[in-house]
């Protein structure tokens, strides 16, 4: 098979980028999309040209590194998979394929198709954690959790943090990502101690990083490689409302904890 690729090339974060057209020859239909790009890069290196920078790691759909918008859809035309799990047999021979990076103010371009997704890490640092006691490890399954609850938490926890939800959203909103993380921890007993503060802190961090707001178009769910449901966005909205009610009743930090209540 052969393809014409329109690839976004950009030398650095502050430089202007543009599309450059490349030809991919001798592509096997069994090649993954990334393997096809590897082939193009080998050709470029052989010609003494700069290879196309793109991010990848595990190449088995679980690390969340690969991040290409292929013909206007993050992770390409198939549903429920990452770019590395997309195979060239999915495209007609001779197709013209446009490849772009995730586009969001919160994801500055590092080079070509590589974007800096550390904004998602900072949102996690704001509240996406649980407190664990040091000392001897707790026995497995010492804490009983209902089957349904564990399954729902796992559905949310399957988020690999690739950022396709942000890339697909008209508003570059990270709501599905934050919703998955908040729901996952709010559903489990281990997440209960920080439950109230977590959702407020994570939404504040999300706003601070410059992500947009949710328009309930559900494009995020349609491109999510882990098919995370937008029902978790409703859960996030409920958690946020709950936190607003609970936190507004808490004393301010400046008040003495021993003062008599008025």
């Amino acid at each position, binding site marked *: 098979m052969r393809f014409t690729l329109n690839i976004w090339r950009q030398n650095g974060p502050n430089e202007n980028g543009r*599309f450059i057209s490349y030809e991919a020859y001798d592509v096997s239909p069994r090649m993954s999309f990334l393997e096809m790009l590897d082939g193009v890069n080998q050709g470029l290196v052989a010609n003494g040209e700069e290879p196309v920078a793109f991010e990848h790691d595990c190449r088995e759909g679980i690390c969340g590194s690969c991040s290409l918008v292929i013909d206007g859809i993050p992770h390409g035309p198939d549903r429920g998979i990452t770019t590395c799990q997309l195979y060239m047999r999915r495209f007609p021979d001779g197709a013209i394929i446009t490849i772009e990076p995730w586009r*969001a103010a919160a994801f500055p371009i590092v080079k070509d198709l590589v974007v800096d997704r550390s904004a998602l890490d900072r949102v996690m640092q704001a509240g996406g954690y649980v407190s664990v006691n040091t000392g001897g490890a707790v026995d497995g399954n010492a804490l009983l959790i209902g089957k349904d609850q564990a399954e729902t938490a796992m559905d949310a926890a399957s988020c690999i943090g690739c950022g396709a939800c942000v890339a697909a959203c008209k508003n570059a909103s990270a709501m599905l990502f934050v919703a998955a993380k908040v729901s996952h921890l709010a559903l489990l007993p281990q997440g209960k101690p920080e439950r109230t503060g977590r959702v407020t802190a994570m939404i504040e961090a999300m*706003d601070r990083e410059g992500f947009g707001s949710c328009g309930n178009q*559900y494009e995020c769910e349609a491109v999510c490689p882990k098919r995370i449901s937008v029902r978790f966005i409703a859960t*996030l*909205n409920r958690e946020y*409302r709950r936190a607003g009610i609970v936190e507004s009743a808490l004393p301010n930090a400046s008040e003495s904890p021993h003062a008599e209540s008025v």
Partner: protein
Amino acid sequence: MTRLFSHFQSSVGSKVLLALSGLGLVSYVIFHMLGNLQVFEGPHALNRYAALLREMPILLWTARVGLLGIVVLHIVLALQLSLRNHRARPIGYAVRRYRRASVASRTMAASGAVLLLFIIFHLLHLTAGIIDPSASDRLDVEGHRDVYGKIVHAFQNPLIVALYVVGQLGLGLHVNHAVSSSLQTLGLEHAALNRLFKAAGPSVALLVILGNVAIIVAVFVGIVR
């Protein structure tokens, strides 16, 4: 209190206020439509209903000022959020394919703008009588203001009919996405009720359009005279 206030300043908090104000306006639109449907009961019923509203000036003006406040809040929040959303993606995609987003959800700003222009026109036309003053404020046989006559006069004009139908389509498109979206923003989600929540937007939009357009068409084709 300051903590609660700051809660509403975040993107999610603003959206909750946007959803609540929007749902408030939708309930007014339904109430308005039901009131207007009395045109089918004849001039007596509609004019008496209009007079009844005017007999309670405090209630009427509270409702008017309240509605204006809600509209202003709704628009200010929508503009704030749109600006933020616009900043979130300064460089767009060269190729963009939507998989799920409905036409209504993608045109909320446009349908909202059409709706705002229509509301201003509608207030100047039928409420204030500034556009087309020829039909304003005659009295009917019982001494009530002849609202019925005003409506009949207005919708015999094809240009007015066209403008009102366009306004109704803008309203329908906006409400179609708005109601279901608001329910999601308020966190209403339940496996047994999700179908209902999803159908709420299109159903309310259809109901309001059918009710309002029925009046316009009935006058235009001469069923209501």
